[in-house]
């Protein structure tokens, strides 16, 4: 593309080259559509690139970066075009996608015009503000995942993980495998909503019951752990060991310490309901602190347009009202992946395949893979039921609420 050329006509522009966006791009391109994928990262693949899990079914490893490269290759082979290091900063009905190049201009267009747009911008981490969180050495758990699994750099030598959810436990394990001394996994400061031992356990316990046979190793540990019984008996154990790492279920972070760099953290014991116990304050020496406070669907682009949203804790935040076939209220605008609810990469990929069927249908293209969107939407509900893990056990309830809001709104505006 020449520098003067500032606009291009596409059938589909995909914003976000994660598993959802790349899968949709592949299928629409394979059906003969002119497709462009834009991503602000320097490489395609989205959050998939940082993922490393052990699959309990066959003890194989889920290596996200390899899956990401394959997904990009499949989309390119199908005829989709790709641009990295480019941010979509605005959408205008019609559709025009405005672009800017934060990493320096590479001669790319400043806008793209397209018949359809797929917003597949994924999720971001919810911040956990606490004294010391802006010090070098304090980072989100996602940053630790990128350092460890993508850049192969230890986030620190002695690391404290704050916050207990599927993501933080998985990444704590990845750090441990990389040779990091994970000195403890503790609860967020008591001021953080839902951070009490009881609330934390009641969020984790239902996950342990999900498809136990296929749960990603962690699940086996969850089930083996005494905490499910502990919950039933209303007792919260003080510390459990997970692969030798202490999971301190009765300890909360107070502040992160250090002047130029993290040197430690102040901790306090709490009651089951999260009240600090006076006299139990203590310090632990660490050089990095990883903060995990959950994920939020990223929806800024759609928030600037004329469509409605549903607030759903089950989905992780506020998501655009859309149909179960992933059409939005705006003609030619589609959504897929974590932008409509926090789920695993496998589900995001399925949503990508589903939305492609809707787009192919609406644009009058013909799919070579076959299948119809309504059928794929039903398959997705089934897939959720047998998923080896979920970020939120009630995610399907959230999607059902969105579907009801869609029907009530009369669908397309």
């Amino acid at each position: 593309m020449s520098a003067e050329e500032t606009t291009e006509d596409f059938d589909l522009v995909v914003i976000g080259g994660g598993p959802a966006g790349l899968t949709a791009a592949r299928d629409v391109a394979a059906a003969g559509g002119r497709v462009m994928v834009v991503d602000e990262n320097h490489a395609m693949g989205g959050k998939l690139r940082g993922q490393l899990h052990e699959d309990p079914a066959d003890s194989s490893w889920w290596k996200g970066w390899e899956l990401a490269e394959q997904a990009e290759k499949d989309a390119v082979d199908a005829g989709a075009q790709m641009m990295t290091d480019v941010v979509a900063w605005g959408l205008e009905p019609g559709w025009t996608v405005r672009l800017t190049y934060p990493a320096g201009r590479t001669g790319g267009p400043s806008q793209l015009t397209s018949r359809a747009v797929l917003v597949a911008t994924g999720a971001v981490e919810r911040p956990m503000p606490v004294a010391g969180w802006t010090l070098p050495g304090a980072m989100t758990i996602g940053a630790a995942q990128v350092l460890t699994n993508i850049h192969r750099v230890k986030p620190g030598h002695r690391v404290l993980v704050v916050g207990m959810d599927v993501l933080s436990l998985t990444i704590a394990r990845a750090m441990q495998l990389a040779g990091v001394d994970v000195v403890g996994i503790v609860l967020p400061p008591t001021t953080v909503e839902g951070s009490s031992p009881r609330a934390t356990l009641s969020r984790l316990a239902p996950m342990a019951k999900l498809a136990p046979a296929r749960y990603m190793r962690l699940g086996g540990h969850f089930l083996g752990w005494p905490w499910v019984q502990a919950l039933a008996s209303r007792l919260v154990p003080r510390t459990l060991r997970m692969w030798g790492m202490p999971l301190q279920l009765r300890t909360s972070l107070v502040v992160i310490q250090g002047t130029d760099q993290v040197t430690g953290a102040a901790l306090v014991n709490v009651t089951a309901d999260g009240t600090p116990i006076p006299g139990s304050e203590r310090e632990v020496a660490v050089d990095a602190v990883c903060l995990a406070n959950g994920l939020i669907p990223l929806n800024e682009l759609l928030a600037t347009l004329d469509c409605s949203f549903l607030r759903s804790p089950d989905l992780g935040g506020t998501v655009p009202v859309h149909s179960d076939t992933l059409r939005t209220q705006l003609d030619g605008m589609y959504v897929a992946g974590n932008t409509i609810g926090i789920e695993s990469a496998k589900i995001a990929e399925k949503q990508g395949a589903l939305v492609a069927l809707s787009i192919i249908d609406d644009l009058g293209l013909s799919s070579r893979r076959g299948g119809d969107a309504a059928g794929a939407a039903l398959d997705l509900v089934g897939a959720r039921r047998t998923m080896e893990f979920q970020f939120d056990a009630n995610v399907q309830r959230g999607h059902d609420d969105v579907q009801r809001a869609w029907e009530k709104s009369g669908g397309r505006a």
Partner: protein
Amino acid sequence: MNDHMICRCEDVTASDVRAAIDAGACNAQEVKMRTRAGMGPCQGRVCRPAVEAMVGVSGEGVLQSTSSMTVHLPIRPVSLQDLVIIREQ
């Protein structure tokens, strides 16, 4: 001692936000108006949920936007060159 940063772009601390709430700010947008939290280069992408955690989210069910703290174009910093090209067309 427990004061900490909420909006890194505009240097707004937790006590600034608390003072705004005490002075009557009822939602994240009103906190933004009083403190500038969310008005920097990231436009609230990081601090919006942190401010909402302090002041509460407003609205339930079907809403007209994702947050009371409004989202505006451009959603990210844009190079002047890219804006100039649009103008020329």
